[in-house]
């Protein structure tokens, strides 16, 4: 067991590294401890700069530095894996309302979308049920590529500069997916109807014929012919993007 005195000394060193506020620490060489503070600050700053390049460019230098130094000082990093730390940074900034403080309403959405891009890119491989490349659009079950997130934004930061996006408050739905072949991450803006379809397919692979009555109940669209005419190109475009991998009749 460590003695309380040793624990206290270790904690003081760590506290100083986090806050930059001097602590009384015995037996240190003059002017050396600050190197640890600087190295740790740089690791956090570099990690966030790499994860959130668009946010960093949008904020002023002072605002960015404030986020990084407040985060380091006030947040207790929980992940042992530094590449996951941007997720904690996003939550910290959101929970502490910097968007209001900076009068930059779209800040949370921008951090969120930059993080989700990393999350989808790195998310552990999920095995996919068996499927075939060709099938019958109406009767075969559609098999989704599981490497995606459906998200809702208040500001359209995915296709507007964040400053502009701040003036466009609304409900924006996005599919962020990892291409099964290239592993690259892409964004696709969706209407609520298409979000609904992807949600249904996620819960349970089904065919377009199975989907139609569900859509009818949820959205009151009973013109089947028009619906099918819309669904077909949508499904085909999802297949081209590898969001739908293929078909199954099992």
């Amino acid at each position, binding site marked *: 067991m460590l003695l309380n005195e040793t624990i206290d000394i270790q904690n003081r060193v760590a506290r100083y590294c986090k806050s930059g506020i001097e602590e009384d620490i015995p037996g240190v060489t003059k002017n050396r401890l600050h190197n640890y503070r600087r190295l*740790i600050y740089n690791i956090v700053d570099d990690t966030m700069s790499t994860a959130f390049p668009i946010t960093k460019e949008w904020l002023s230098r002072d605002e960015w530095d404030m986020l990084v130094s407040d985060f380091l000082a006030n947040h207790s990093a929980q992940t*042992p894996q530094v590449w996951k730390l941007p997720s904690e940074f996003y939550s910290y900034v959101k929970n502490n309302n910097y968007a209001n403080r900076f009068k930059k309403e779209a800040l949370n959405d921008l951090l969120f979308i930059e993080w989700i891009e990393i999350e989808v890119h790195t998310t552990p491989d999920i095995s996919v049920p068996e499927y075939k490349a060709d099938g019958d659009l109406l009767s075969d079950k559609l098999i989704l590529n599981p490497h995606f997130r459906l998200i809702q934004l208040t500001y359209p930061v995915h296709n507007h500069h964040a400053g502009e996006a701040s003036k466009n408050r609304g409900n924006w739905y996005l599919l962020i997916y990892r291409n099964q072949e290239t592993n690259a991450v892409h964004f696709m803006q969706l209407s609520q109807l298409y979000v609904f379809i992807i949600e249904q397919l996620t819960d349970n692979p089904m065919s377009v014929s199975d989907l139609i009555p569900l859509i009818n109940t949820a959205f009151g669209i009973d013109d089947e012919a028009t619906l099918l005419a819309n669904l077909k190109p949508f499904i085909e475009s999802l297949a081209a993007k590898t969001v739908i991998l293929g078909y199954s009749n099992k």
Partner: protein
Amino acid sequence: MKTNSIGIGFRKDFADEFIDNSNFSPDFVEFAPENWVDMGGYWKKILDKVTEKYPAICHGLSLSIGSAEDLDMVFLKKLKKFLDQYNIEIYSEHLSYTKAENAHLFDLLPIPFREDAVKHVVNRIKKVQDFLERPLVIENVSYYTPVAAEMSEEEFITNIVNESGCKMLLDVNNVYVNAFNHNYDTKAFIDSMPLDKIAYLHMAGHTKVSDDLIIDTHGQAIIDPVYDLFDYTVSKINPVPVLLERDFNIPETNELITEMSRLKEITTKHWEGVKCF
């Protein structure tokens, strides 16, 4: 893993070279499990290719063997699965702490060189070895200031290695850096290490930031005095694998190949034909 073999740290910044460059053929690679556990998609495919092509060692970052905190069993479980999955026999970590007051700091802080810390670390090494069902190899770290020390660095390291029964990763550059920063004699320091317990060696470059301070950046080429110390160290120990660490400011691959060849020349000079002594 062959004993007289020279490896290099596998980094994303020059990952393609490991797969595509036929002139670049390290004997083995080393990487931090923290950077790869839970990783899917593009990077997992790259890691799979690299570990298929080269034998691998894992060198951890966040175990925080010197912390007062409990060991992170959630991470250790993932780590064990990962080491098993990739057939990793050697797992090394730093003799430092990276977590305090329930916060990870992602850098290697200096453990106070004290008797209670020796006992504490020895205890934790044993726990980790038992859980992972493989030996833990402990590395001497660079440090920029002692903190409340009651013994020398040599005593601290030697006591921990001897009492825990663990193996040691001897970082020759770290010995040079510490000797410079704290006015030691480099060779006397090497002599004082438990040289019969060395599992492998690290070599790296560093950055001199002022007249009296070197920072262990792994961002420059190895300098001649560190090669000299390496030569001295190699002359004193049985053959073991040697790893070149390069994390920042990655040069043309040919420069890395040249550094690895120079390391191999030295090890071959001392170890060629040598089985054991």
